[in-house]
Every structure is written in structure tokens, then in C-alpha cells.
């Protein structure tokens, strides 16, 4: 109650200030009058009594001040007047204010933007009811699984999911889901959208309500169901149907199967995967119908589902995990894939299920980008630190300019604490404006960042709203920078001795080192920090350059990848092989096409296929068989990609089903697995899970190429003729090399495909573009760290320039005297530059040490470079030194042009 009285009285006092003052006046007046009357009764004259009463009171104003300081709202008023005073000062120095606010806004903006991203992918919870109850069910062991992995979250097989669903007890509701892509074009060129397979309990478990229509439920998800209902996302509804309510009940073609839209998800529901957004969700049971013979549902070694559940009240993750572990042996026993070999089976039976926290959903984005984001946050934090140091430097310069003012104010009785408060209010004002502008900037920056990581095939979606965490972060940054750049100068400015300052003439001869040390330390640390950032920027830029120029072993430019899906023709195995062959011939016949080849796994596309190799014709199995990457290709593949054939021959049109099985291997395979320089004529067999095929006779040897990733060491690769594949695919990926313009080529390809059969699904992408997009993260990292590095150098150089100019200004008299005594221009320049070189060399030495320590954090993100790469360090040091020297040459040469007469007369 006391607090409330105090608060309300204080607020009343603030708003009815005049009345409060009037009452205070009245009360004291009343007191004085009574006191006077009393004294007159004791025999004094009126004047005497009045005087005595006033004396006794000891100054009406002092008493009033005492009363005011007994109430908190006064501090508020002082702060307000301090802020007004600060604003006035800043208005008088627009250049200073502008520079300060701009550098703060950039620094705070960059930090907030990156924090916002980190917040969005890392800290935010799912947009569902009670997200803390949601957990992911997965195998506790990492790795060791064999089979086909066909989604971003391949946690479970369908058989495992069925068992888990039936036997788990810790979850009130549990669902399975899998991200996928659906082609929504009824025919012709493919139009892919982001899809999800969801089990019947998906929406019910998450507790979201449809914006329109109904959600899918358990009745929609029954084994062996035929295509039926689909739920679309709010944004898909807006985009494709313009938000028309009649979208419910309309037909939607997914991979040529007819579905009916039954409901629309709410606007804020993006799914359970942070960083992506679903467009269409259909029941898991429709997977066989949509995928046809590629369906994973019946395959016990097909990993494509992930599962999440809502914990029952009173159940913890530990308890749910314990229950899942208890049922694990039976579950894995019951779902053991029949095609596993003994090693696979043994490992499979050791697996245990567990429940993992998933309140913020799942995200491969998070896994991939958390470390770069943290690193970027550190980099931008350092930039902000440098910006703060710069501001501190400016404030210090202003502090020494205001020494007299401070001295005077202290001489007339201002308390030091009061002056510090006032100076800090000025810093607070700068920091606040900087933070406000910074957060405006941040939103656009983070949108830009997300947009530059997004590609057409891999669209990213990050929910970027400001929440309390982002707000708190920005506010904390503002306060921190304010203290960083405001406190030391404020302490310094008020530590003056009024007597000394007021006596001192402005005409010092040489500059005392008294007030200069702190500024030097600031500049040295700025140089050190900016060198670190510059080293980081150069490391990332050089790493990117190495990655982009890495020897892939094949030609990247001028190649169009065309994917023709002819599953709608429902061809037999023989029919597929001959249709694929026919398609390829038609491509080759297009005028302007120089070469073309069919390939099962486009290099560097992210698709991979690995199997065990058994060298020889019939050697017995070993415990550990070597593993090789595989690809299935048509004749002309190596010619199209310009991969040199080192020995033997390419596949030809006689290597077809029925003719002897042949293979081509790369150098690494020959050296590491077959242990021979020229394996042509030797044989090997292939084991896929428990199935052994072959032997294959090696007919050619090719140079090493990259397979799945630019960063990988050369892998053993075995190439098999696509025409000998026992189960030909129902689609053809054709690499076409041509010098035709892209639009001309694509329309010619469309025509050629249509001449084979009209209305087939087909899609295109550029081979080079695809490889470039694989480096998106690296490119962004290089760009951002380059931006931060450049910003840091600019700020540090401004700081150095400021200190050197300041020194020159302070030593004008000294320089004048030296010149009048016969010093020439060169010796003056040397005098000034000596200072700069001193600061620079200390700064660079500290910076090199710092960079050596700090760059270790980046080592895992670098390619082909050690974090302590000497060339990079030397380059960064040279660049910074050159820029810094150039910047300080300006004040040095100005100093040397000083007219001694003017300098000496100058007061």
C-alpha cells in the first residue's frame, strides 16, 4: 500500500507540478508567518522577527530542494531535462550526432538482424497449442542405418511407425509426417510445390484449428486409401486461389493424381519444420498411389518418416524415453528388413527409440546455420565494439574540448555525479536513436539474408517477427554501447580539477600525455579488432574462391539438365529402357546440341548411392567390405562432361540388357579398392544390403571427379551402363551440352520430348547454376564477413585519423616552434607518422595474436585453408597498415604545411 501511495502521489506530482509547487510555497509561507508572529509576541519588531524567522529556516529554496529530493519523481524530471539538454547539444553538432547515430544504427542493426535470424531458427517455439508438450520420437543412435533415405527427416520406416503408434504409451496423440514435393501441374512442364505426408492425427496432435473447411483426421488415413482429401496452407490458398472460400471442394492434381481440397490451415501455421513452409498436406496412406513403384511404404529399409507426439499430462521426456526403450527390442525385431545382410541386421537390432524435445520443431536449417549465425553474431558484435570505441574516442575529444565548461560548472557547485548523469544522458540519447534506427534496418537486413539463402528449388521461409527476445536484445545492446562509449569519457570529463583547468591557458606547448592515453588504447584495440575481422573476411573469401575453383573433374558450363518423367506411360522394364534410349537420341538430334547423356545421379545434386564392393569374381565375403559411390550412365556421359578417359573404352550401344555386365571405374576406386593402376579387364561384384550382383567386367578407367559435395576428398566411383540396369527408372535425367541460347534450347527440348510423346512431365535446370547454389551459404558468409571486415577497417581508420588529427591540433605550437627553428616538412611528417606507426604496430601485433586465437572458431567452415593461414594474415596486415598509413598521412602533411607564424600566434 505504501508503494502504491508513493507511486500515485509521485505521478500526481509530475502532472500537477504547478499545483504541487504552489502548495509547497503556501505551506512554507504559513510556517514563516507563524514563526514571525511568535517572535513578535516575544517582543521583536515585525522586520526583526521576519528576518530571524527566515534565518532560522535557512533558505526557502534549500528547504524546497530538500522536500523535492524526498520524492522520486524529481529524478525523473532531472533525467528529462538532462535529455533535453543533451538533445540541444547534439543539434548544435549535427556532424558528430549524424556520424554517431549512423555507426550505431549500422552496428546495432547488423547485430539485431542476425540475432533475429538466430531467434527465428533456434529459439522460437512451434505455432501450436502448448508446444512444450511436443516431442520427437526417433532412434537414439546416430548413423549406422542402411537403406533408402528419401526425405530431409528420414527418422523411421513405415513399419517402425506402425509399431510405435500401436505400442507407445507416453503420448496422448502421436503422428508421423514426411516433407516432399508435389507437382501440381496436370501435365507438361512441372510445377513443384512443398508438400507433406501427414498421418491422421497430425492436426489433432498439434492442436491447430482450420481457418476454413476441415482438417485431415484418422478416417482419411487408412491403409490402402485412394487419393482423397488435401489440406492447403493459408499462403497457398491466397496465392493459388486468391483467398476464395470456394476453394474448398475444388480439385487439385498432385503428381497427376486427383485430390480434393478439404481445408485451409491458419495463417500462422507453417508446419513443424522451422525454415520451410508447406503448401499441401495429404494423408500418409496416399503415398503408394502418388509414388507408384517408388513408394517407400512397403519397404522395410525405406527411411522416409518422422514422428512427433504430445506427451500425456504428467509424462516427462525421460519417462517417455524409458517406455520407448522398453518396447524397442520387440519393435526392431518385428520390423527387421528382410533384405538386410547379417551386419546390417546386427546393428539394426541394437537400436533403441527415444523421445526428444521438439517444442521448437525440427530444422535442418538450424543444424546447418547455427554455427555460421553464431559466428556472424560475434563478427557483428565486434563491429559494434569498434563503433563504440570510435564514439568513445569522439566523446573523449569532446570531453577535452569541454574541460573548461566542466571546470566552471564544478566550480559553481555542480556535483560530479550530477555531471556524469548529464553526460550519460547524452550518450543514452545517441544509443536510443541508434537502436531505433538499427531495429528498422535489422528487419530489412534479415529479410534480405533469408532471401539470399533461398532458391527456387529450395525455398526458405523464416517467421521473422520481433518478439520480446529480439526487443530485449536490442535494448540491451543500446544500454551496453551507451555505457561502453559514454561512461569512460564522462568519468574522464568530470575528473578535472576546476582550479587547474580554469587557470590553464589554451596555449599548451606540447600535449601532455595525461588525457591522451585512453584514446591511444582505444585506437590500438580498434586496430587489433579490425585486423581480426579482416582476417576472418579474407579467410572466408579465399575459402569461397578455393571452393568455386575446386577441380571438379568435369565441365560445368553450357550444360542443361532435363528431367523427363514418363511414369504416366506405365511402361514395362524393356519399354522404359527403349523409351529412355529414344529420348536421348532425339536430344542428340536437336541441331546445335553437341552431346547429350542420360544419368541416374546428377553429380553434386546431393543425390547419392553407395554400395559394398567385392573385388574379383567369386571371392568370399570379408568382414569389412569397401564401399563405393555408384552412378548409372549412358554412353557419352564422359564426353558431355569432358571427363578424360584414361584407359579402356566408354560404354557403347552394345552394352545393353543381356550382353555381358560391364563397368567403368575412377582412379580412386582403382587405387584404393582394386589396388591396381590399370584395372581394365578385372572384375568386381556389388552387394546392395544382402543382394549380390555381378560380376562386372571393368572396361574403362576415368579421372577422379566430385560426386556429392565440392568439399569431399576424391571418392571411389563405379559407373554402370544405364541400359543394363535391372530396374530402369520411369524418368530420364539428360545432360545436354549445347552452345544454343538457353531459351532456344529449352523450347527445342520441349518440342523433341513432345515428338516422343506429348504431355510428359518435364523440368529443367542449369548444371552450373545448381553447383553455384550449393555454395550459397559460403557465398553469403564471405559477403557478410567481407562487409563486416570492411566496416571494421573503415571505423578503425576513422578512429586512427581522429587521434592523429587531434594530436596534430594539440601540438600545433610545438610544430610551429620546431619549424621556426628550422625543421623541414619531411621531419614534421616523420614526427607525426611516428606516432601513427607506433599505434599501428602495437595494434597489429595484438590483432595478429587475437586473429590466431579467434580464427580457430571458423576452422570447420573453411575449405582448403588452415585458420592460421600465414598468407591471409600477411595480406590482412598489409591492407590494414597501408590504409591506416594513408589515412594518417593526411593530418601529417597538413601539420607540415603549418605556417609557424600563424601557429605561434594562434591562441
Amino acid at each position, binding site marked *: 500500500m505504501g508503494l502504491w501511495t*508513493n507511486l500515485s*502521489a509521485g505521478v500526481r506530482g509530475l502532472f500537477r507540478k504547478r499545483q504541487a509547487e504552489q502548495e509547497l510555497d503556501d505551506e512554507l509561507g504559513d*510556517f514563516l508567518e*507563524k514563526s514571525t*508572529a511568535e517572535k513578535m509576541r516575544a517582543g521583536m519588531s515585525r522586520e526583526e522577527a521576519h528576518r530571524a524567522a527566515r534565518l532560522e529556516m535557512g533558505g526557502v529554496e534549500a528547504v524546497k530542494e*530538500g*522536500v523535492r529530493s524526498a520524492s522520486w519523481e524529481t529524478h525523473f524530471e532531472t533525467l528529462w531535462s538532462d535529455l533535453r539538454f543533451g538533445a540541444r547539444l547534439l543539434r548544435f553538432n549535427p556532424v558528430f550526432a549524424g556520424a554517431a547515430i549512423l555507426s550505431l544504427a549500422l552496428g546495432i542493426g547488423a547485430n539485431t538482424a542476425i540475432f533475429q535470424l538466430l531467434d527465428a531458427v533456434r529459439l522460437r517455439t512451434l505455432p501450436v497449442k502448448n508446444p512444450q508438450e511436443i516431442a520427437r520420437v526417433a532412434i537414439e543412435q546416430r548413423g549406422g542405418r542402411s537403406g533408402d533415405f528419401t526425405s530431409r527427416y528420414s527418422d523411421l520406416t513405415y513399419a517402425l511407425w506402425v509399431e510405435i503408434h500401436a505400442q507407445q504409451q507416453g503420448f496422448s496423440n502421436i503422428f508421423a509426417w514426411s516433407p516432399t514435393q508435389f507437382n501440381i501441374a496436370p501435365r507438361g512442364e512441372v510445377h513443384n510445390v512443398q508438400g507433406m505426408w501427414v498421418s491422421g492425427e497430425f492436426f489433432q496432435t498439434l492442436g491447430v484449428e482450420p481457418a476454413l473447411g476441415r482438417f485431415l483426421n484418422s478416417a482419411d488415413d487408412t491403409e490402402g486409401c485412394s487419393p482423397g482429401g488435401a489440406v492447403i496452407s493459408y499462403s497457398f490458398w491466397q496465392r493459388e486461389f486468391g483467398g476464395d472460400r470456394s476453394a474448398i471442394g475444388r480439385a487439385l492434381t498432385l503428381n497427376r493424381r486427383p485430390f480434393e481440397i478439404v481445408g485451409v490451415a491458419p495463417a500462422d501455421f507453417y508446419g513443424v519444420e522451422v525454415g520451410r513452409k508447406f503448401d499441401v498436406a495429404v494423408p500418409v496412406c496416399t503415398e503408394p498411389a502418388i509414388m507408384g513403384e517408388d513408394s517407400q511404404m512397403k519397404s522395410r529399409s525405406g527411411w522416409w518418416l518422422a514422428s512427433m507426439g504430445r506427451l500425456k499430462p504428467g509424462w516427462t521426456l525421460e519417462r517417455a524415453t524409458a517406455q520407448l526403450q522398453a518396447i524397442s527390442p520387440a519393435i526392431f525385431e518385428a520390423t527387421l528388413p528382410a533384405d538386410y545382410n547379417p551386419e546390417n541386421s546386427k546393428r539394426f537390432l541394437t537400436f533403441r527409440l527415444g523421445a526428444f524435445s521438439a517444442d521448437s520443431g525440427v530444422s535442418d536449417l538450424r543444424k546447418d546455420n547455427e554455427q555460421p549465425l553464431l559466428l556472424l553474431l560475434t563478427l557483428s558484435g565486434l563491429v559494434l565494439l569498434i563503433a563504440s570505441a570510435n564514439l568513445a574516442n569522439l566523446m573523449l575529444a569532446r570531453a577535452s574540448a569541454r574541460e573548461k565548461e566542466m571546470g566552471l560548472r564544478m566550480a559553481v557547485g555542480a556535483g560530479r555525479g550530477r555531471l556524469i548523469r548529464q553526460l550519460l544522458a547524452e550518450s543514452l540519447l545517441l544509443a536510443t536513436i541508434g537502436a531505433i534506427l538499427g531495429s528498422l534496418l535489422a528487419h530489412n537486413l534479415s529479410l534480405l539474408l533469408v532471401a539470399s539463402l533461398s532458391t527456387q528449388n529450395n525455398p526458405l521461409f523464416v517467421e521473422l517477427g520481433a518478439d520480446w527476445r529480439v526487443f530485449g536484445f536490442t535494448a540491451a545492446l543500446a544500454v551496453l554501447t551507451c555505457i561502453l562509449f559514454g561512461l569512460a569519457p564522462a568519468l574522464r570529463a568530470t575528473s578535472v580539477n576546476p582550479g587547474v583547468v580554469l587557470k590553464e591557458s589554451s596555449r599548451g606547448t606540447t600535449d601532455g600525455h595525461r588525457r591522451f592515453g585512453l584514446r591511444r588504447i582505444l585506437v590500438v584495440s580498434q586496430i587489433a579488432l579490425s585486423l581480426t575481422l579482416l582476417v576472418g573476411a579474407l579467410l572466408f573469401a579465399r575459402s569461397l574462391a578455393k571452393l568455386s575453383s575446386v577441380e571438379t573433374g568435369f565441365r560445368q558450363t553450357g550444360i542443361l539438365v532435363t528431367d523427363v518423367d514418363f511414369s504416366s506411360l506405365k511402361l514395362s522394364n524393356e519399354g522404359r529402357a527403349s523409351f529412355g534410349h529414344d529420348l536421348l537420341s532425339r536430344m542428340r538430334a536437336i541441331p546445335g546440341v553437341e552431346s547429350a547423356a542420360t544419368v541416374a545421379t546428377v553429380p553434386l545434386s546431393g543425390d547419392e548411392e553407395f554400395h559394398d564392393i567385392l573385388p574379383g569374381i567369386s571371392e568370399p565375403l570379408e568382414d569389412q567390405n569397401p564401399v563405393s559411390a555408384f552412378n548409372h550412365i549412358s554412353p557419352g556421359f564422359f564426353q558431355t562432361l569432358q571427363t578424360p578417359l584414361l584407359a579402356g573404352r566408354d560404354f557403347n550401344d552394345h552394352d545393353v540388357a543381356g550382353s555381358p555386365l560391364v563397368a567403368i571405374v575412377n582412379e580412386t576406386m582403382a587405387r584404393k579398392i582394386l589396388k591396381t593402376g590399370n584395372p581394365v579387364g578385372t572384375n568386381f561384384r556389388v552387394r546392395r544390403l544382402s543382394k549380390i550382383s555381378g560380376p562386372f567386367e571393368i572396361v574403362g578407367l576415368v579421372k577422379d571427379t566430385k560426386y556429392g559435395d565440392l568439399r569431399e576428398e576424391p571418392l571411389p566411383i563405379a559407373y554402370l551402363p544405364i541400359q543394363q540396369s535391372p530396374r530402369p527408372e520411369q524418368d530420364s535425367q539428360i545432360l545436354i551440352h549445347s552452345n544454343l541460347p538457353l531459351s532456344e534450347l529449352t523450347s527445342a527440348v520441349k518440342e523433341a520430348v513432345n515428338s516422343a510423346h506429348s504431355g510428359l512431365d518435364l523440368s529443367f535446370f542449369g548444371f552450373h547454376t545448381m553447383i553455384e547454389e550449393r555454395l550459397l551459404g559460403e557465398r553469403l558468409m564471405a559477403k557478410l564477413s567481407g562487409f563486416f571486415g570492411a566496416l571494421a577497417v573503415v571505423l578503425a581508420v576513422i578512429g586512427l585519423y581522429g587521434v592523429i588529427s587531434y594530436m596534430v591540433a594539440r601540438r600545433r605550437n610545438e610544430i610551429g616552434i620546431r619549424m621556426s627553428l628550422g625543421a623541414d616538412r619531411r621531419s614534421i611528417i616523420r614526427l607525426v607518422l611516428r606516432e601513427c606507426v607506433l599505434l599501428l604496430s602495437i595494434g597489429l601485433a595484438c590483432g595478429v595474436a587475437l586473429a590466431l586465437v579467434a580464427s580457430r572458431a571458423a576452422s570447420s567452415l573453411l575449405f582448403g585453408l588452415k585458420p592460421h593461414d600465414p598468407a591471409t594474415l600477411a595480406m590482412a596486415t598489409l591492407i590494414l597498415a597501408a590504409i591506416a598509413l594513408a589515412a594518417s598521412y593526411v593530418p601529417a602533411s597538413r601539420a607540415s604545411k603549418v605556417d609557424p607564424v600563424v601557429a605561434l600566434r594562434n591562441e
Partner: protein
Amino acid sequence: MIDTSATLVQGTLDMLILKTLALEPLHGWGISQRIQQLSRGVFEVNPGSLFPAFRRLERAGVLECEWRTSENNRRAKYYSLTKMGRQKLRSETKEWERQVAAIARILQTAS
């Protein structure tokens, strides 16, 4: 007039003000006179500490005030105790007596 009176022990001014107001509502001058009278001139309260104390106690919710017309037909601010003020006075008096007794005991043994 110079303040020759004994300096008040820290914190006791509040208690004296509360005690003075326990009888009847009073204005500032009245309170200072009453303290002087009751202490037989030992304590003379300086307005410079009296008025800030009023504000402090008022904010703490132990005093309340109202404007009345005083004897000489002037507006005067009268202070009175709130319920909380009476409680505070009781507890502080008790505490004070306890401390004085303790100090007295110490002084007696020391002699």
C-alpha cells in the same frame, strides 16, 4: 537563531513527528513547536529537515494531510496519522524502549 539543541539521533525525528500527531492533527509550525515544548527545549527542529520528513512520511503512507483554514484565516496544511502511521508509532516506540533499556543496562554495568 543558531541551533544549539542536541542533534537528533538518526531516524528519531520521524518517531517524534508521529508521536506529536498521535494526539491531534497539526500544521508544520505546530509540530515543530510541540516537539520543542515537549522536549523542554532540548530539541529544536530545523525546518530544513522537518519538511522533507513530512514529504517522506506522506509518501510512505503513514501521514495524510488536508488543507484547513487556520486561526489567522490563512490556508494551512494539517497533518494527521493514518492507520498505518499509528501502527508504525506503536512498533517504533516499543523498539525504541527496548533499545534504550539495553543501552542503559550496558552503561550501568560499565560503571
